[in-house]
C-alpha cells in the first residue's frame, strides 16, 4: 500500500525557544557562576589529595574499607584524588555550558553529497584528457611491464617475513619421551616407583632430563603427563593399550587434545579428567575417551613400564602428536 496520495500531518516547525532562568535573571546567572566555580575548585582539591598521597602515604599501608575490603591506601587515595580532579573539571564545564552559554538551537542547511552533474562531467573530461596525454592506452608495453613489476614488488615484503620462524618440520610429532626415560614428579624432579601412587591418586609428571632447572617451556608444553592409578580390573582397554599400563597406572598427555590447555582436574569418584578451558571431559578407564565437551580425540596415552631398579620409565615414545590438532597431523 502506498501512502503517497494520502497527505501526512503537517510539520508544525521548530518549537519556540524556552528561556532558562539565568538568561534573564542576573541573580540566577550569578548563582550558576558560583556553582561552576565550586565544581572547578573541587577539582583543585582532588589534585591536592593526589599530590599528598603520592608524597606522604607509605607504600605498605593497607586500610579496611567496608564492601571494598582491604585496600592499598596509597593507590586508593592517588586514584580518588585523580578521579576527583578530572571529574569535576568535566562537571564544571558541562554545568557552565548548560546554565550560562547560549542555548539557542540553530538550523543549518544540508547539501546532497553528490557533486553537480557539471562537476562530474568536468572531472571525467579532465581525467580522460590527462590519461590520454600519458598515452597508456597506446603504450601497452609500458602498461604490461609496469603491472608485472608492481605485482612482483609485493613479493619482497612477504618474503622478508620468512625468517619469523622455522618451518614446522616434524617437531610437533616429537616429545622428550623415549624408551627408558624416567618419569619424574612436577614439581620436585623425583623419580617415581609404582608404590608411590595409591589407587585413586594422580601424579603430575615430566621426563627426567639432565638440567631440570633449565627445562624449556616448549618442551614442558609437550612433555607434561598425568599419571593415574586405578584398579587394573577397571580398565576397559584392548590388549595393546592395556599392555601400556603398569599395575593399574596409566599415563596420559596432560596437554588437552582440544586446544592445548592443561587437563588439570581429576575427579576420583567418576574417574574423569576435566579440562577447565572448555570442559572437555575424558574417561580414564576407557583410555581417556571424550565423554563431554568440544574435544574430538582422546588424550594420547604413553606406554610405561618399570626399569630394573623399579622406577617408572617410558616404554616407547608417544605413538601420535600431543596437543591440539593441525593440518598435517597423523590420525
Amino acid at each position, binding site marked *: *500500500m*502506498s*501512502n503517497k496520495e*494520502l*497527505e*501526512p*500531518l503537517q510539520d*508544525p516547525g*521548530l518549537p519556540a525557544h524556552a528561556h532558562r532562568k539565568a538568561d534573564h535573571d542576573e541573580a540566577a546567572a550569578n548563582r550558576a557562576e558560583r556553582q561552576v566555580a565550586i565544581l572547578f575548585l573541587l577539582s583543585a582539591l582532588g589534585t591536592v589529595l593526589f599530590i599528598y598521597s603520592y608524597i606522604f602515604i607509605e*607504600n605498605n599501608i593497607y586500610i579496611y574499607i567496608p564492601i571494598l575490603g582491604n585496600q592499598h591506601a*596509597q*593507590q*586508593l587515595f592517588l*586514584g*580518588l584524588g585523580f*578521579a576527583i*580532579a*578530572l*571529574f*569535576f*573539571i*568535566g562537571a*564544571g*564545564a558541562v554545568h*557552565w*555550558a548548560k546554565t550560562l*552559554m547560549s*542555548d539557542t*538551537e*540553530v*538550523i*543549518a*542547511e*544540508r547539501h*546532497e553529497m553528490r557533486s553537480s552533474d557539471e562537476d562530474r562531467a568536468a572531472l571525467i573530461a579532465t581525467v580522460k584528457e590527462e590519461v590520454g596525454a600519458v598515452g597508456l592506452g597506446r603504450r601497452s608495453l609500458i602498461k604490461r611491464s609496469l603491472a608485472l613489476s608492481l605485482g612482483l614488488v609485493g613479493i619482497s615484503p612477504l618474503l622478508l617475513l620468512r625468517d*619469523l620462524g*622455522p*618451518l*614446522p618440520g616434524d*617437531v610437533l610429532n616429537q616429545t622428550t619421551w623415549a624408551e627408558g626415560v624416567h618419569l619424574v614428579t612436577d614439581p620436585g624432579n623425583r623419580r617415581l616407583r609404582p608404590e608411590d601412587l595409591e589407587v585413586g591418586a594422580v601424579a603430575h609428571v615430566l621426563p627426567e632430563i639432565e638440567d631440570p632447572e633449565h627445562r624449556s*617451556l*616448549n618442551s*614442558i608444553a609437550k612433555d607434561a603427563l598425568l599419571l593415574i592409578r586405578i584398579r587394573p580390573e577397571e580398565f576397559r582397554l584392548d590388549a595393546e593399550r592395556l599392555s601400556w599400563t603398569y599395575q593399574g597406572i596409566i599415563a596420559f598427555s596432560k596437554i588437552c587434545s582440544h*586446544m*592445548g590447555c*592443561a587437563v*588439570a582436574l581429576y575427579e576420583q569418584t567418576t574417574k574423569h579428567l576435566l579440562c*577447565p*578451558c572448555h*570442559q*572437555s571431559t575424558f574417561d580414564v578407564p576407557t583410555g581417556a575417551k571424550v565423554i*563431554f565437551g*568440544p*574435544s*574430538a580425540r582422546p588424550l594420547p596415552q604413553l606406554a610405561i613400564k618399570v626399569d630394573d631398579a623399579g622406577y617408572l620409565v617410558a616404554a616407547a615414545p608417544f605413538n601420535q602428536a600431543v596437543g*591440539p*590438532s*593441525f*593440518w*598435517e597431523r597423523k590420525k
Partner: protein
Amino acid sequence: MKPARERIAGSVANFVDERTGAAKFLKKSLNKVFPDHWSFMLGEIALYSFIILLLSGTFLTFWYVPSQEELIYEGSYVPLKGVKMSAAYSSTLDISFDVRGGMLMRQIHHWAALLFLAAMVAHMMRVFFTGAFRKPREMNWILGVALITLGIVEGFLGYSLPDDLLSGTGIRIAQAILQAIPLIGTYAAFFAFGGEFPGLDFIPRIYTVHVLLLPGIMLGLITVHLMLVWYQKHTQYPGPGRTEKNVVGYPLLPVYMAKAGGFLFIVFGVTAFLGAVASINPIWVFGPYTPTQISAGSQPDWYMGWLDGLVRMAPPIETYFFGKTISWNILIPGLIVPGIMFTGLALWPFIEAWATGDKREHNLLDRPRNTPTRTAVGAMAITFTIVALINGGNDIIATHFSLTINQIMWATRISIFVLPPLAYVITKRICLALQRADRDLVLHGRETGRLVMLPHGEFVEIHEELSPQEAFTRTSHEQLAPIPVAAIDANGVRPKGVLKDRIRARISKGILQEQIAKPTAKEKLELGGGHH
C-alpha cells in the same frame, strides 16, 4: 587601543592565516551545527576512552618489559618472592607494587579498554537501530566494523602481555586456532610464535603490535571516521522543524565544545574512579604462566567471552581425509561463525538497500519501531551473541546456580538455534504493537484517567490530544511500498534476471508490507477533537 591580550591574539591569528588561509576554513567549521541527543554521546565515550588508553598505555610502557626470558622475582610482592617467571610478568608485578600509581594506571588502562569496547558496541547498536548507516554513511559504518574488530584484537593482545597464568592460557588457545587453519595453519603458528608454543618471541612481537601497529591504524581510522562525520554532518532524530535537508542543533563554539570537552574529563574521571576502587585483572593471584597449570574458572574479558562460549558449545567434530586433519570443532566457532557475523555486519547497509530498493540519501534517523524487520534482525543478532556469552561463563554460572555444566551446555546449544528466531518474531510483534500505539495516540490522544459522565449516564474517559509537535514526530516517517514484481510481458516472456527480481520483491514485501498505516491528516481531521 585594544588590550594587550587581544593584540597578541590578533597578530598570532594574522600570522597563521596569512600562511594557511585558515580563517576561511575555521569560519565555516565553527558554524557547524551538532544535534544533541544522549545516544550521540556513545561514540564520544569510545573516542575518549581511546584517548585514555593512549595516555595510560604510554605510562605502562615506561616500566613494562616485553620479554619472555626467565628470571627470579625479587620485587616487593612477598608471596611470589623467589619464583621463576618471565620478565614480562615480573615487570607487570613491579608496575603494580613498586611504581607509585602504577597499579592505578594498570587498572585505569584495563577499565578503559572494557569501556572502549562497550562504548563501541553501544554506539554501533545506536547506529544500527536508527538506520544511521544508510546512504551516504555506509563507509563510516564499515570503518566502525573495522574499529570494533581491531579493538577486540587489541584488547586480547593487551591482556596477553602480562604473561600471567590466565593470559598464557589465552595465548595457548589463540595458537591452537591459528594452528587449526587448513593447509597453512601449522606454518602460520610457527611464524607467529617463532617456532613451537610458547617460545620466546610471541610477547615481544605482540607488544609492538599492541603499542604501535594497531593503535596507529586505529588512530588513522578514527580520524577518517570523524572527518566523515564532520563533512557529511550528523544525522538527527525526526521531529518538528527537522527535515532531510537541514540540521538542527548547537553550534560548535561554545556550547558543543564545552560539553564535549567536559565530557572527556568526566569519562576520564569515571575510569580513574573505577581504577581506584575496583580491582581488575589481579595478575599476582594467578601466578606466572606455565603450560602445565591452569586456574579454574578461567575467563577472558567480556568482548572475547562470546567466542569462548561458541568454542565451548561446538560439537566434537574432526575429520581426517587424505591424510589431513581438519578441526571443525575449532574452525566453526573460532573462525567461520565469527567470520560470517562480521562480514554480515559490514555488508548490512548494502543488504538492506538492496532488499528495500531504497537507494536515497537519509539524514533523518528511524525510530526503531518503524523499521520492524531491521530491529528484529538486530535483536536476533544480539540474542545469539548473549547466548554464546552466557555459555562462555558456564563454569561460573554452574557454581553460582548449582547447575551442572552439562545442563548449561545443552541449554545453550539448543538456545543458540531457538532463541534468536524467537527474538526476531517477538521483536517484530513489539514493533508493530508500538506502531499501533502511536497511531492510537495520534488519533485519539492520551488517556488521562479522568472519567466524565455523559448526559445519558455513560462514563467515558477524557483523552488529551497530543501537541502538534508530538503528533508530527510520531507520523513523519515514510512508509515505503514493497518493490513490485517484474511483470511477465504480453508474449509471456520473462524479463532477464527475473528470478533474482522475484526473490528480491518477495523479501522487500516481507520487510515493508507489515506496517501499521500511519494516520493521515484527513483521518485526524475526521476524528475531530480527540474525545469521543
